[in-house]
């Protein structure tokens, strides 16, 4: 539905277009069934960053305090990229893994379901 206007077309500006992020793109990463971390987090990341840097540097900066984090076996993690299951190549860049601007990456850690298995 187009937005109704007094005259002309509704002025529309993409406030979060990729060119506004100084060479980075926005990536959201959420850890399924760990809701004590209240949301997926947003990160401005270079598209050429290797995917492996996500698990080695970016995610620990936020998720490391969670008692489950140290127990994650990254080889067993199940990944979702924009709603589809996928297997990231850790050596390749975000871009080459298909991670685009405002992509949502979710991951599940089988066997680790939050504090006392409560999804926290």
């Amino acid at each position, binding site marked *: 539905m187009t937005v*109704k206007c007094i005259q002309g077309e509704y002025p529309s500006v993409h406030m979060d277009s990729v060119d506004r992020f100084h060479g*980075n793109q926005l990536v959201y990463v959420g850890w399924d069934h760990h809701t004590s*971390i209240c949301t997926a987090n947003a990160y401005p990341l270079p598209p050429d960053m290797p995917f492996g840097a996500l698990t080695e540097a970016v995610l620990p900066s936020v998720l490391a305090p969670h008692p489950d984090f140290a127990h994650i076996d990254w080889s067993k993690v199940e990944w979702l990229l924009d709603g589809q299951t996928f297997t990231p190549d850790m050596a390749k860049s975000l871009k080459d893994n298909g991670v685009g601007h405002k992509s949502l990456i979710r991951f599940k850690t089988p066997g680790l379901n939050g504090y006392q298995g409560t999804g926290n």
Partner: protein
Amino acid sequence: MAKKLNMRKRYELLTRGLGWEPTYQSKDKVFAQEAYEGIKITDWSKWEDPFRLTADAYWKYQAEKDKKLYAVMDSFAQNNAHLNLADASYVNALKLFIQGVSPLEYAAHRNFARLARQLSGEGAQIACQMQSIDELRHAQTQIHTISHYNKHFNGMHDPFHMFDRVWYLSVPKSYFDDASSAGPFEFITSVSFSFEYLLTNLLFVPFMSGAAYNGDMATVTFGFSAQSDESRHMTLGLEIIKFLLEQHEDNLPIVQGWIDKHFWRAYRLLGLVAMMQDYFLPESPMSWKEGWQIYFVENAGALFNDLGRYGLKMPKYHEIATAEADHISHQVFGIFYNYIHAAAFNLGLPSEAKMNWLSEKYPDTFDKYYRPRMEMWAEMAKEGKRFFNMGLPQLCQVCQIPMGFTEIAKGDPMQIAYRVSEYQGEKFHTCSDGCKTIFDYEPAKYVNAWLPVHQIFQGNCGGAAVPDVLNWYHFHPEDGGDYVGSADEARWKAMKGEAAAPEAAQPTQADAA
């Protein structure tokens, strides 16, 4: 001697015949906003004023109410009555109110003035004029009432500046901006009906009864002073809906769409109130869930039964909101526990007594899902590792709340709900079916959203580090964080003679300015 007129006649004479047919310009140009939304008005004279209040009576009533209110405020200040509070942690409810609600009152004042100018019916013009003045009075009296607390506690020094910038205040701001940037009929449906008629009790009752339970008589008096206005506003909300539906059958789908949209937006905003109600009040009169049951499920249910004769249905996704009543306050509290270092109020983990109260009020969810979370956080804090979220949250493109709501209706309440839409090659994320439906209906509007997290990353909020952003918000370093160990707690203990006045807790010159 002239015969004394009855009220109705007198009212008609004082409020009708004030308009005129324009001759220099066409009527369409004079009231240029009245037609473009597609609403059809065939006869403005059918407008029935909900309250037959003339300007002279209005001034008289309001002046009397103000006189009483200011007398109470004066005596409150002279007697240092803030010392009678149950506990200073209660003041955090007032911080949320002055930061998030009072600026809405002012925005409502501006918008009802617009409506008084843009609607061509004289009865509606007068009702909107009076509401415009009411809203300004509310903003002013709230500022005056709470200014007393501002002398003694943090976080209340610059609410209007904060409102335009702060991440969590973008929630009320964007809700109201959405309505303000729409046409006059959508605005009045949003604010007068979806918000004031359907949901206002869920906002005002928790704050005012919370004030009464916790010894804040100044805010209670303000509440009484506003109450008669609020009931007039609610009646205006109902009148406008009935009027629009009686005017033309084509209005029904338009009005239903607005009710659906603004119900959901207002409900999402009230998540902040739910947190306040269940977690901020030392003494809690009523849980969010109880309030939702009474003021929405029962009252709104009866109302829509009544409105069914116009073809109007309960707002879309109302059953989701009802299912969420068991979770929403805990989830919003969780968001603020993650980010309290970036807020201008304090909170803390609930005491054992409070957790028992929550277990009793939320028997199906608190012990199963949320008590374990509190225990985990308490253990972490005990080890000196109090959990703070050091990243920035993903925000919903529509409600702008951090995307912490879960798949309750799908039976997976500990899994965050993600919705996404594509528009002109870009992805837009929303927190729920309600917000996604709103986005998908008018994507060209919501791509314009000023999302605080993205704005920080773009470099538009004072800097890249958290202290830079907080400084840009006009927060002081001691405004946020846990209540235990806060400047407010230290000050309160000193006031009550339980500890010496800490130096850091003394108001500085910058505070006074």
